[in-house]
């Protein structure tokens, strides 16, 4: 009996081995245009009511005009989209058209999951977006794996009544330097109220994006098979250092807010606990939705470091799965999605900035009566590509090393030197 049992286990093991070899036996489709009518799935991550509605409208209009290419819209969520895509690509169930952001998709591109759209996208789409932004969605082999859509920048929201009550002038002009931000915050801190609230529970993206204002690039992207390398110098650490000083030396930035998410901190801004609130420009939509009556707010000029008001462009993206049977038709839909009217509509709903410059012009025209839009659009003038988007191990480094180290630094439990070491050693330890 015992021998039989062993034989049984052996048999199972052999079967398992065979199964193991079939781990990835499926071939990618060769691509190209499929004949006849096709149905393509499109997973959108839009989540604010206005953008969800705008997306649906775009898809409905497309479907009405294109009986041969039907787009089936599903609603995904930013929360957990990376895990979802890993699983879907592996299981062969990924949607044809994939909405995500550039810093998250380059790893998938390297694993061969994303189709090269360079050959399919129209000239209009190609010309609408600047080369810097195209760089953020181009692999080191020169494949364009996505079309960049909307861009988030970090802006400073201000409660103008709190400024008036403290007798502080609301900053204006082309840019707001970090030093001015720090000084203003100090003036506004009194009576248990803080100058700034900043939901930095996930600090890495914000630091990566704004570090560029001081010339902090963090990574050198290797050529060909060369590994990407990291360098953490003074320029890279300028932004963390300032945030730390505001939170722990000046006490003008609420340190508790640094441990919370952006939307968790928002109620504090709306209730007057924070005179200024730093966050992605998309938060403007939440402010308009939930501000109490009589709440007066504005957006301050773009934050500037020594290199000017430069931020990294980390655009949202539209990609096509390498396994899609009709990449050409999918790209056709993306072209349509990228049209200035559609992009302007989506951008307005989300308070984000279109990567396409005709769409930006359209948006400026549509919003000329809403003054807070101007500084937001202005912050897009100085968007630039940043190496972290090309570094394929960036997502893992961000989770396992950068985020914990920055969180510890912002909680004042490690110093600047430790931060530097952790960021560098962490990158070098990822296989």
């Amino acid at each position, binding site marked *: 009996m015992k021998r039989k049992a062993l034989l049984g286990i052996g048999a199972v*093991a052999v079967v398992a081995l065979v199964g193991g070899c079939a*781990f990835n036996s499926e071939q990618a489709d060769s691509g190209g245009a499929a004949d006849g009518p096709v149905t393509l799935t499109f997973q959108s991550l839009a989540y604010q009511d206005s953008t969800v509605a705008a997306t649906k409208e775009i898809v409905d209009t497309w479907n009405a005009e294109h009986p041969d290419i039907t787009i089936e819209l599903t609603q995904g969520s930013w929360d957990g989209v990376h895990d979802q895509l*890993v699983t879907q690509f592996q299981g062969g169930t990924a949607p044809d058209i994939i909405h995500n952001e550039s810093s998250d998709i380059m790893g998938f591109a390297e694993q061969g999951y994303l189709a090269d759209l360079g050959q399919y996208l129209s000239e209009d789409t190609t010309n609408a977006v600047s080369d810097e932004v195209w760089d953020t969605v181009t692999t080191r082999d020169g494949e364009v794996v996505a079309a960049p859509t909307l861009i988030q920048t970090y802006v400073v929201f201000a409660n103008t009544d709190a400024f008036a009550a403290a007798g502080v002038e609301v900053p204006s002009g082309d840019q707001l330097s970090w030093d001015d931000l720090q000084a203003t915050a100090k003036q506004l801190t009194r009576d248990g109220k803080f100058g700034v609230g900043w939901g930095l529970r996930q600090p890495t993206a914000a630091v990566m994006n704004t570090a560029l204002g001081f010339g902090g690039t963090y990574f050198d992207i290797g050529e060909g098979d060369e590994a990407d390398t990291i360098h953490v110098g003074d320029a890279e650490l300028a932004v963390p250092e300032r945030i730390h000083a505001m939170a722990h030396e000046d006490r003008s930035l609420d340190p*508790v807010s640094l441990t919370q998410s952006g939307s*968790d901190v928002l109620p504090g801004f709306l209730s007057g606990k924070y005179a200024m609130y730093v966050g992605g420009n998309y938060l403007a939509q939440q402010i308009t939705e939930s501000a109490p009556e009589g709440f007066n707010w504005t957006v301050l000029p773009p934050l500037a470091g020594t290199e000017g008001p430069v931020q990294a462009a980390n655009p949202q993206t539209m990609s096509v799965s*390498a396994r899609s049977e009709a990449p050409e038709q999918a790209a056709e839909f993306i072209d349509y999605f990228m049209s200035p009217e559609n992009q302007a509509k989506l951008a307005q709903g989300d308070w984000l900035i279109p990567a396409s410059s005709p769409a930006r012009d359209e948006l400026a025209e549509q919003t000329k009566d809403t003054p807070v839009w101007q500084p937001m659009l202005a912050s897009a003038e100085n968007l630039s590509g940043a190496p972290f988007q090309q570094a394929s191990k960036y997502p893992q480094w961000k*989770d396992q090393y950068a985020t*914990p*180290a920055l969180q510890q630094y912002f909680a004042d*439990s490690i110093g600047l030197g430790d931060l530097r070491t952790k960021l560098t050693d962490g990158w070098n330890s990822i296989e």
Partner: protein
Amino acid sequence: MTTATSRPVRPRRPPRGVGGFGGNGGRDAWLLVLPALIPVVLFSVYPLVQGILLGFTDAQAGLNQPVDFNGVDNYTRLLDHDLFWKSFRIGLIWAFSVTILQFLASLGLALLLNLNLRLRWLARTLALVPWAMPPVIIAIMWKLMLNPSYGPINELMRTLGLPGDINWLGDFSTALPAVIVVGIWAGMPQTTITLLAGLQNVRGELHEAAAIDGAGTWQRFWHVTLPALRPVIVAITSLDLIWNFNSFALVYVLTAGGPGGQTMLPMLFAYNEAFRYGNFGYAAALGNVMVVVIAAFLVLYLRGQARSRDS
């Protein structure tokens, strides 16, 4: 209780290999078990064996990625993977603290419920509720409770004049303790009810005899109740330890392992390796190590218990 346990007639054990009324019991048994056996072998035993083997391969995410056996490479790599050991340590702290504290809290509650107190029914019902709640919801509820600005816990702290702006789940020093408290809350029902059932089987005569001998409440508890409860205690604490070590949903929703990996239980860590970074082979290797360690603890614990019972 009108339960199976207290039925006066114990069912007579049928003779080996013979059913209720003779016949070829062995074959019948197989036929009866087969419908359960097939899905279990196909979707549980087979994946499990494959999973163990996967821990010895370099399986990774990627289109047409070849998979090769790489022997013990995963394990040598694991040896100096600091993050994994940190997560492992957190897992052990979590599993042991929750199990021990949960046991003590549950024992106290079970003893109280075993007394003839008023409102006992209400306490008993309340003690059961967390069992029925989905772990995701328990996590959401406690997340709201622990919210630094609007949660009732900080509000209470402020009323008492204590610092009321602690971000329990976001602060490096408080995140793990806070998560452990939620773990205790979530797991108390099973432990309490099991202990209570065990208590109700402790025979009254023993207590009376001890009382006649002049033993006080504490002595009776120590010398009568506890020894009688022992098998139940060993069983439930072993199960709790396994369940806690392998738990996932609660902490995934509460903190997702943060801040800075302070609550990164091994299950979360392995999940991330597999479904975030696409290192399937490595994740399976982590699973293998977890099984070996938890099995070792159990063997030690159960053997120690058996030995001290014999002596």
